[in-house]
Structures are given as C-alpha cells and as structure tokens.
C-alpha cells in the first residue's frame, strides 16, 4: 500500500502588515472635532481611531462620511478598502482599492493589498502585476515580497519565490511566516537542513505558530524522526484543535509506527 504523501497546508497570504490604517494628519483629533465637528478631516481621524480600537463597522461608516464630503480622498477609499477586506467584503474592498488607485496611483500599499485580494479571488496575473507595481513604487516593503513569493511558489516559480523570501527576510528578519514559507520551498527542493533551520527560526519567532510545527513535523516524519514528528503534530493540534491536516498526518504516523 502507498500511504498518501505528506501534504503541506500553507497559511493564507496575509495583509496584516500592509493593512495598517494610514493616518492622514497628526492634528489632535479632539481639537479638530471641537473646531469642525462635521469636516472630512474629523471623520477621518475618528475613523482611524475606531479602526485602531477594533470598531470596524464604525470606522467604515466614518470613512464613508469622508468620501461623501470629499469624494477625491484616495486614502479614505484605501482605508475603507482595508476594513472591508478584513471583514470579508471582498468585492467592496476591490472597488475601494480600484478607486483609491485611480485617485492616487502612487500608493504602493493599495497595489499590494489589491494584489492579495486578486490572488485570493483567483486572478493570478492581476495579482502578480499589482505586486510588481507595488515593489516598483516601494522596493522596501517586506510583506509585498512575501506575498509575491507565495504567489510565485504556488505557480511553480521556485527560483523567483526563493529570491522574494530572501529579500523579505532581509527587510524584516522577524516575520515568522516568511521563514515558514521558505522552509516549505527548501523542503520541496530537497534541502532538508535548510528547511529545518527555517522552521526552527519560525517557531523561535512565534512559538504559537501551529503551521510551522506541522511543517516541521512533516519534515521530521520524512527524515525518520518519528518521535520528533509526533511531538510537533501534538503541539500543532494543541495550538489549533481544528487542524485537520495535522490529525491526518499524526494518524498516518501512528498507523505507520503502530502506536496502538
């Protein structure tokens, strides 16, 4: 019998870093509201505050107000796009990013986030074009390299992906997910030692990163370290009790080594 090959589950591309809400100006909001309670700028400030305190719906309402009062405010579209994006409204987010880019083609973050969205919606060519453009506008954004690297890896461009991950790590050496991704790439190309180093680093940076334990478990399983693999699967499941792939891999391990 052949047992199913080890499966990788990659975490989703993330917009966490790029999705920071931009502040438009640094005037104290309190003062501003007192002076001009209904101005676009005051809604903008409150929208930023609400977003930062987790009130997404309130923030979306504020940025919609800004847009009504100041229909050419590119950053308001961008911020509302981020918030819609985060709350799962992909079409609304896409519309906002499009408009923001139309009004201000120099905002690298808007391209970068639209790239992630297009990627998720299956528009790979569009996503790649957006990442490329974002990098052209800002060659120092670690997250855009990370996302482009993931896209390249998924489309079979391992060399390009590796270059992107390397660059991303150079720009931000503390982002655990990039090591995890590069680890997968190295593992798939037979560089087990390099992969192990990357998974270890990912776990060191984020000891709660279930996917890195899962992937290291697969590597250990593959290289005959069944005890180490079991410990990693256990930990991945402990961190994420709904991790179906980890159960499947642990079951395979137990099946193979007869841990009754």
């Amino acid at each position, binding site marked *: *019998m*052949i*047992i*199913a*090959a*080890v*499966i990788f589950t990659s975490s989703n591309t993330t917009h966490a870093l790029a999705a920071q809400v931009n502040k438009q100006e640094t005037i104290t909001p309190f003062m501003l509201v007192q002076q001009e309670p209904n101005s676009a700028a005051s809604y903008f400030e409150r929208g930023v505050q609400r977003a930062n305190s987790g009130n997404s719906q309130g923030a979306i309402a504020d940025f919609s107000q800004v847009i009504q009062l100041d229909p050419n405010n590119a950053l308001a579209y961008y911020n509302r796009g981020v918030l819609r994006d985060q709350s799962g409204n992909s079409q609304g987010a896409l519309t906002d990013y499009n408009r923001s880019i139309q009004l201000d083609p120099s905002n690298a973050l808007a391209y970068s986030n639209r790239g992630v969205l297009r990627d998720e919606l299956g528009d790979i060519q569009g996503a790649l074009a957006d990442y490329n453009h974002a990098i052209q506008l800002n060659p120092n954004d670690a997250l855009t390299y990370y996302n482009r690297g993931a896209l390249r890896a998924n489309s079979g461009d391992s060399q390009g992906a590796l270059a992107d991950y390397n660059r991303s790590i150079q720009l931000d050496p503390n982002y655990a997910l990039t090591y995890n991704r590069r680890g997968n790439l190295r593992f798939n190309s037979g560089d087990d030692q390099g992969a192990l180093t990357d998974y270890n680093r990912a776990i060191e940076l984020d000891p709660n990163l279930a996917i890195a334990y899962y992937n290291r478990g697969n590597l250990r399983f593959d290289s005959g370290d069944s005890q180490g693999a079991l410990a990693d699967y256990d930990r991945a499941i402990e961190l994420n009790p*709904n*991790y*179906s*792939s980890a*159960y*499947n891999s*642990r*079951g*395979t*391990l*137990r*099946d*193979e*080594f*007869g*841990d*009754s």
Partner: protein
Amino acid sequence: MLHVNSGDNREALTDFNRAIELDPNFSEAYNNRGNLRLDSEDRQGALADFNRAIELNPSNATAHYNRGLLRVDFGDRQGAVADLQVAADLFQASGDMVNYEKVREDLRRVQQ
C-alpha cells in the same frame, strides 16, 4: 511512502476520524483511513473510504492505487486494471517516477 505494518491502531483511527469530521472533503484522510481499515480486515469499510477519496479528488493517485489492489482481492480484475492504470498515469503526470514504476509493476502482475 510505503506503508509498513500495524495492527489494531485506535489512535490513528481517532485521528483520521477527527480529520474527516473537521474537513469532510479531505480526500487524503479518507484514503489513509481506508488503509487503516484494510489493516484491520475491514475490506468493505476500506473500499467505501477509497471510493470517497476518489470521488472527492479524482486525481488522488494513491487512492486509485489502493483501490486497485483491493479490487484484485475482491476478484474484480477489470476494475483493478482500470484503477492501476489511472494511478500510473497520475503518478507519471506528477513526476513521481518511483511510485509510477511501482504501479506499473503491479499492473503487469495483475494483467498476467
């Protein structure tokens, strides 16, 4: 990956059940549970799992291979050959030449 040994393995079964419970479309987990059931002589249960694995992912080469061998056991040579042929094609297409050769060998044996 070659499957070695194992008898009654409740913990593994629990894991596969949980994987399937969490993700009812998880083709590999059905395939793996099928293997486990086969080990404990539950051939009907195994067949059901391989069928489901293939239904969920018709490109699951290992499930075709496993069902192919099981069909040999059931005396269904025609069905076995069909499954092994598909498995061989899928392994070849994915560049997995080790398993491709292995399946080809089994195929020749079944066809004799």
